[in-house]
């Protein structure tokens, strides 16, 4: 069975069993919480069906959702009848699912009757009269006896009741009565009290042999679906376990491995120890356990590839290319943490191969290649690593273009390039600032540079290599560790301190002595080593880490590879390799780029793990590393450290560089100036079937006379706006630290980005220029002084607003932590995080802002924290409710000035009180 389908079945049958229980609960106790949950479940089912192309399921789910929606909005009362109807719909869904599971397709037939009933219910034409006949799915519809009733009749008939001609009269009468009853019921629409006698009467007295054929078909079809009740394969095979539980298990196992290592170390060297045998056994079991737990975290890499065929297909249509995407080794498994991290780089690289690598069919024909271009993805295991190859048979990298670009960007001089071999020159595409911005198309979307790809891969301890042959295509080889939690490391000693070097970076070890053929030679104090006809640059760990005790006894060189850069680290001694569990370093040490973490060795001592990237960076090869400073620990999701932000750097209205957080930019587009239309004197273009207003950075709305102009598209929900710029320069990842704040409207301030002073644009200023209602007016002044290092927790489900408010508040001098939901926020509370103020959205999926406030106020360390509610509709009623649950203040979402004012005054009030 299709993986997607079977996953859907598993998930849906789980949801359905929850639904059954919840619906019954709802009937007894119509609580909004339960209803919300039910609504969400049905909604999910509907959404997934639509996605998988299961129209029957989708329609039933949709109709049920409508009814549930009315419940939720309080327009319909939760009556037993209504719940019965929903349960029927659920039963129908189950039926269809059962069929799906056995035959992998939806059963024939249609659900018009059920849907009609659900729709009637939703519109308030509730056939309450029929309620007591709950067991039978066939309540009488309000008006003339419809197919259902006939079906019912037919059933009765089939059950052996003989038609009596003299009952014809009775039939007519019964029909009349049914009508009457229905009409009555409608009159007292919402009254749950029904007339139980009406239906049985109808049933008993209508053995009319006038069943309509569709009804027959329907009747016949259902039993088929239920027919062969195969043991459900879906239910038993898997259980769902919280990822957190798995993470915990993994941590425990890691600790166990450490303890085992410790024990082994103690027993080592004592041959006759009675512990040897049991320890051996313990060791084996630990290893097995480790593998087992590791497997639970493993997912096939195919999961990360799932969306690639679609992307390639779209590309091939858009670019008019014929592309054959081959995916080999999709079942290769790797740690889900790693999987998440390589998803985007992979997508990007495949897109690159298809977009830039492959030629059009004409060009391919001319080159004597098959018309259909090939992009091959291949994944396999190799010695504790996963290798992923992405290759295409396209034109290969354009050496001349890269050279030009390298010279233009000042990365190398012409003479330097002359001396390099092609493979070395290709590496330039990994350099920061090498994104080929001129090629930003709708296909490239928000073009992330290869440097980001490389940084991301290196962040997880992986490497990426590139081979390219003109006219034959290019191949990227990504090598990543199987898991991040436990790595194999080489333990070295330098100035009587021990350090660990991740094994993945170590190529070989060379022992140097003064009289051997391998000797360290100096070129003006720069140590180098002749190694197999190559000159290997060396770094002395002792000098690098400023360790100055102990006499000079450096004898080993650890040949290390970072990307394509190979260098040697001079150390005193080399010990064993050991499996280590990488732990993050304390926040106060995170700025030291030489270390990627620390760990506890078998003998119980703490040891620092060297970061080869950082060391390479310190040796001056930072340019080769894309970002260069990968100071963050490789493993940990870092909460406290200053995180990097991707920024889009562009030029507009002048020569100076401007930047905006990439996350705010929905897309990059290029518009033809010809296409700009004016309405109301405002420029706009037709974009994806809608009008998109255009705004220029200086408000002049002057565009180039002709040609194409790049546009940054900002979008939030229904609004889309284009900011016209002159040139897109680059996308860089850097710390967004605004150093000079500006008084100019539309400017957040100035920051150093990729080494250049760059103006950070306030997207929030330009949006209202396009839409009056996007934000409130922005002309109030607000104080930005003297609240340094006050920490604000921002809870908002919309990434747009998180991205918008975070820089805004940072500029205001606050330290902002943004999370996407109340449960995440509460998790931070559990972790013991402290804040000075909480800003929370009200409408959020899951826990709403009101519930969140109640939870915060009810217990825990944040009880006394000031809270500000943020909502798109701020009515008096909302305001009052916010106050009641514990919000100190309430601000309309679009009014950023009053938000800043409110924060300042709330904090000031608090300070005054303290």
């Amino acid at each position, binding site marked *: 069975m299709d993986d997607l389908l079977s996953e859907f079945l598993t998930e849906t049958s789980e949801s359905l069993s929850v639904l059954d229980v919840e619906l019954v609960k709802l009937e007894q106790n119509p609580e909004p919480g339960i209803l919300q949950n039910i609504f969400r479940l049905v909604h999910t089912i509907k959404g997934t069906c639509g996605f998988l192309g299961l129209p029957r399921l989708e329609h039933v789910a949709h109709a049920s959702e409508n009814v549930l929606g009315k419940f939720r909005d309080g327009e319909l009362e939760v009556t037993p009848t209504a719940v019965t109807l929903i349960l029927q719909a659920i039963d129908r869904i189950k039926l269809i699912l059962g069929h799906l599971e056995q035959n992998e397709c939806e059963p024939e037939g249609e659900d018009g009757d059920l849907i009609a009933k659900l729709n009637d219910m939703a519109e308030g034409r509730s056939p309450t009269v029929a309620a007591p006949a709950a067991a039978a799915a066939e309540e009488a519809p309000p008006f003339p006896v419809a197919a259902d009733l006939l079906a019912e009749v037919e059933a009765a008939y089939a059950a052996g009741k003989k038609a009596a001609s003299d009952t014809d009269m009775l039939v007519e009468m019964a029909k009349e009565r049914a009508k009457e009853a229905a009409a009555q019921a409608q009159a007292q629409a919402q009254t749950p009290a029904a007339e139980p006698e009406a239906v049985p009467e109808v049933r008993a007295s209508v053995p009319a042999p006038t069943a309509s054929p569709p009804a027959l078909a329907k009747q016949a079809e259902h039993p088929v679906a239920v027919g062969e009740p195969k043991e459900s394969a879906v239910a038993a095979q898997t259980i769902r376990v919280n990822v957190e539980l798995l993470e915990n298990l993994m941590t425990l196992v890691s600790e166990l491995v450490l303890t085992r290592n410790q024990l082994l170390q103690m027993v080592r060297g004592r041959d006759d120890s009675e512990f040897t045998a049991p320890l051996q056994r313990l060791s084996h079991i630990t290893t097995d356990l480790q593998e087992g737990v590791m497997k639970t975290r493993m997912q096939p890499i195919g999961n990360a590839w799932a969306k690639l065929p679609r992307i390639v297909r779209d590309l091939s249509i858009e670019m008019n290319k014929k592309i054959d995407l081959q995916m080999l080794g999709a079942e290769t498994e790797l740690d889900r943490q790693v999987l998440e991290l390589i998803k985007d780089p992979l997508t990007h690289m495949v897109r690159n191969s298809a977009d830039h690598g492959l030629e059009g069919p004409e060009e391919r024909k001319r080159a004597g290649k098959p018309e259909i271009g090939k992009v091959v993805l291949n994944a396999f295991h190799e010695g504790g690593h996963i290798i992923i190859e992405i290759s295409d048979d396209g034109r290969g990298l354009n050496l001349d273009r890269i050279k030009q670009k390298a010279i233009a960007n000042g990365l190398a001089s012409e003479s330097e390039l002359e001396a390099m071999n092609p493979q070395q020159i290709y590496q330039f595409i990994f350099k920061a600032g090498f994104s080929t911005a001129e090629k930003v198309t709708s296909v490239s979307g928000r073009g992330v540079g290869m440097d980001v790809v490389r940084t991301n891969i290196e962040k997880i301890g992986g490497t990426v290599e590139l081979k390219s042959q003109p006219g034959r295509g290019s191949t990227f080889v990504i090598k990543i560790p199987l898991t991040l939690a436990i790595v194999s490391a080489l333990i070295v000693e330098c100035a009587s301190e021990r350090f660990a070097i991740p094994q993945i970076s170590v190529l070989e070890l060379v022992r140097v002595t003064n009289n051997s053929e391998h000797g360290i030679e100096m070129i003006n104090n720069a140590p180098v080593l002749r190694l197999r006809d190559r000159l290997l640059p060396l770094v002395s760990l002792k000098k690098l880490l400023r360790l100055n005790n102990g006499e000079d006894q450096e004898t080993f060189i650890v040949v290390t590879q970072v990307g394509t850069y190979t260098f040697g680290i001079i150390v005193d001694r080399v010990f064993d390799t050991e499996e280590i569990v990488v732990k993050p370093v304390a926040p106060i040490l995170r700025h030291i780029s030489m270390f990627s973490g620390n760990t506890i060795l078998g003998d119980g*001592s703490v040891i620092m793990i060297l970061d080869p990237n950082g060391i390479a960076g310190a040796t001056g090869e930072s340019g080769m590393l894309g970002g260069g400073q990968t100071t963050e620990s490789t493993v940990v999701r870092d909460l406290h450290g200053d995180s990097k932000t991707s920024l889009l750097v562009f030029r507009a209205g002048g020569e100076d560089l401007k930047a905006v957080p990439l996350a705010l930019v929905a897309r990059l587009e290029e518009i033809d100036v010809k296409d700009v239309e004016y309405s109301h004197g405002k420029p706009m273009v037709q974009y994806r079937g809608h009008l998109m207003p255009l705004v220029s950075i200086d408000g002049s709305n002057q565009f180039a006379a002709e040609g194409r102009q790049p546009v940054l598209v900002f979008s939030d929900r229904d609004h889309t706006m284009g900011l016209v710029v002159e040139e897109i320069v680059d996308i860089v990842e850097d710390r967004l630290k605004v150093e000079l704040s500006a008084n100019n409207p539309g400017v957040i301030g100035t920051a150093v980005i990729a080494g250049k002073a760059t103006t950070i644009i306030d997207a929030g200023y330009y949006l209202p220029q396009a839409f009056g209602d996007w934000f409130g007016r922005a002309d109030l002044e607000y104080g930005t002084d003297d609240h340094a290092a006050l920490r604000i927790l921002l809870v908002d489900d919309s990434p747009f607003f998180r991205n918008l408010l975070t820089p805004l508040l940072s500029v205001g001098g606050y330290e902002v932590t943004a999370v996407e939901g109340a449960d995440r926020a509460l998790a931070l509370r559990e972790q013991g995080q*402290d804040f000075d103020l909480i800003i929370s959205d009200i409408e959020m999926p899951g826990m709403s802002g009101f519930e969140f406030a109640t939870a915060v106020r009810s217990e825990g*360390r944040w009880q006394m924290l000031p809270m500000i509610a943020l909502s798109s509709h701020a009515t008096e009623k909302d305001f009052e409710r916010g106050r009641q649950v514990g919000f100190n203040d309430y601000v309309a979402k679009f009014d950023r000035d009053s938000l800043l004012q409110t924060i300042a005054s709330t904090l000031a009030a608090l300070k005054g009180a303290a």
Partner: protein
Amino acid sequence: MNQIVPASKRPGTELAAPETQDYVTMFIDGQMFGIQVLTVQDVLGPQKITRIPLAPREVAGSLNLRGRIVTAVDVRLRLGLRNAAEDNKGMSVVVDQNGELYSLMVDQVGEVLTLPAAKFERNPPTLDPMWREFSAGIYRLEDKLLVVLDVAKLLDFNKNE
């Protein structure tokens, strides 16, 4: 290694502002300092500490406390005092700061004192600015003064660099 309190966190205790507060006392150069008892995880004797190259001077290194890595901070250096005499082995108080453990190295750890709020006073303005930064206030004891250490500020290394 004597364990005093497993830091059972009772949220809200700081805010309730009770009549008295419990402090773990410790000494550096004869000066008495105090840390709220509930923030203290362990009290340690001399430990094997791994030096961390390139770390701030006040960071003495890291150590292994029952499988967790603890960063040791030399409070003496942090307070701008002279290096301790070589033979002084010292003791440490382990505190939890945002989920990370830090070991504060001091000369000696004393007893736990229960101090009435009435004896608490704000920092005198004449106090050394560096100390004022790390001190949350002073308690007047019978024979000496106790400086309440603000652990969060003491461990906030970003500010001073």
